[in-house]
């Protein structure tokens, strides 16, 4: 059985199929409301909607520009982070050996200096040397992700230009 509610709504939306139209012919209630539904549909259809002002699209694009730039930055990061991760992993691999070597070197220097210089002065020189080594290591490892990201971006741009 066809539901009158569905039929009347279909008439309003202009979606009435053959079954619905057959139902309207046989149902007194739907037949009585058919004209009103058509009038209502015509009334709604008469409103074709307001015209958007011409300034609206440029305004939206201008307002969206910073968000688009942020999307571009995030997309670039999503593309470059695997390269950065690989570079960091490669750089961290020899770090334990470097640290062991540096500690041994600092100890040797301290032992050597301790033999010829007063204890306090030896300690001062060795601490300075160790601090310098720590600074150089920090700078080196800090530069790895920056340089890797830069190189990945350049490779990506190069690929786009050739692609």
């Amino acid at each position: 059985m066809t539901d009158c509610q569905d039929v009347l709504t279909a008439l309003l939306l202009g979606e009435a199929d053959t079954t619905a139209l057959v139902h309207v012919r046989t149902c007194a209630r739907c037949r009585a409301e058919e004209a009103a539904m058509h009038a209502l549909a015509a009334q709604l259809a008469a409103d074709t909607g307001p015209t958007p002002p011409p300034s609206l699209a440029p305004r939206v694009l201008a307002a969206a520009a910073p968000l688009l730039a942020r999307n571009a930055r995030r997309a670039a990061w999503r593309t470059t982070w695997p390269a950065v991760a690989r570079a960091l992993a490669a750089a961290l691999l020899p770090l334990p050996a470097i640290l062991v070597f540096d500690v041994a070197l600092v100890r040797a220097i301290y032992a050597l200096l301790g033999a010829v210089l007063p204890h306090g002065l030896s300690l001062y020189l060795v601490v300075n040397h160790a601090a310098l080594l720590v600074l150089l290591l920090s700078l080196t490892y800090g530069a790895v992700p920056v340089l890797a990201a830069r190189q990945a971006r350049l490779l990506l741009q190069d690929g786009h230009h050739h692609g």
Partner: protein
Amino acid sequence: MASDEELIGRVGVGDQDALAELCRRYEKPLFHFLARHTGGRDVEDLYQETWLRAVRAAPRFDPSRRFSTWMFQIAVNLCRDWHRRPPPEPVEADPNLASTSAAPEARIDARRILTALPEAQRTVLLLRHYHGLSEEETAEILGCPRGTVKSRLHAARERLGQLMGSA
């Protein structure tokens, strides 16, 4: 020609041309939806905010979804928030929003009877009648079962019938 879904994907990586093309395609449908939903108030602000939210969410857009459904979902949520605000004054037709309708009185009547509907019923009627979305798509936009869409549409039709009868 690129599909809407491809274009929003490009917006997600910062492509301004893709956004301009989407704005061109959806300018009228979105503007009309918002104008009819709010009775012509704050339409330009809501229109801009819909696009800004779409651009912000573009990187997370699920390509298996339809862009139009997704965008109308954003617009409907914005309209819901807008309707929760206290109304500044009674609804009047905005003379700045020129329509291409041949009969201005019909336009005003249609807008008046639409604004007389409860917000939930109006949303369903607008999406189904003016934007030709299916029951399923409307249910997806509103995040409700198809039966709810159907019952809201029936209620809207009955209310409109009453309004037309009393006009």
